């Protein structure tokens, strides 16, 4: 009914967090620009970039599901925008239950998929860096 709204709301939150993290990273980089960079696991890809991928995942999924909901006439372009909202308290309850179950499950799966992707990318980059460092040491 409106399960995609959970992911869309989370996408807004992630977008805000991304800008805050980016600001912090820029400030940190400026303050430590003269110091040599220490390589750590996961330090090659910045957190702001990682979060932008999560934001993209959430927006992308929400956008396509919004299209589905519009074609199912569950979302309409006039108030109250959600068809269920104009069908009484039972329909609203059903909608909120669906958002709390299906919507949250969708959000959880997307975040989990993103987290797995981040760990894999970090691991691959870390291994590449280690191999390069070992070659340079020889």
């Amino acid at each position, binding site marked *: 009914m409106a399960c995609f709204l959970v992911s869309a709301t989370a996408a807004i939150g992630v977008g805000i967090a991304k800008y805050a993290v980016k600001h912090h990273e820029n400030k940190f980089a400026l303050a430590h620009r003269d110091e040599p960079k220490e390589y750590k696991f996961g330090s090659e890809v910045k957190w702001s970039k990682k979060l932008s991928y999560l934001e*993209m995942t959430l927006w992308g999924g929400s956008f396509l599901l919004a299209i589905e909901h519009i074609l199912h006439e569950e979302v309409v372009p006039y108030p109250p925008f959600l068809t269920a909202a104009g069908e009484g308290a039972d329909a609203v309850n059903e909608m909120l239950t669906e958002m709390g179950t299906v919507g949250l499950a969708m959000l959880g799966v997307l975040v989990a998929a993103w987290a797995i992707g981040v760990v894999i990318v970090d691991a691959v980059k870390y291994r590449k860096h280690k191999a390069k460092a070992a070659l340079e040491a020889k």
Partner: protein
Amino acid sequence: MYFITALVCTAIAATLWFFFRDRKALHLDFLTIIYGAATLMWTIDVIFTAAEGEAPLTFEPLDGQIALWTVLGGLFLWMIISFIFNHKDKTVEAK
């Protein structure tokens, strides 16, 4: 039906991303992410629908329409994002 369409689109986008991984300006990673995210979300929907005892996959005319709009919507979003990111890169380079 649109779940299967999104799944096929994800597979195609991922294959294209693999073969054209050096051409960053294409932003095929975003296309894969868009379809992949929708596929994951519809997977959950399918699971919950099946758990309620209803048919998880239907092949009605409206489903075909949704599938078509899913493909077009994903491509539209990808083009917009690619345009924004490529324009942003050019602005940064110009600075």
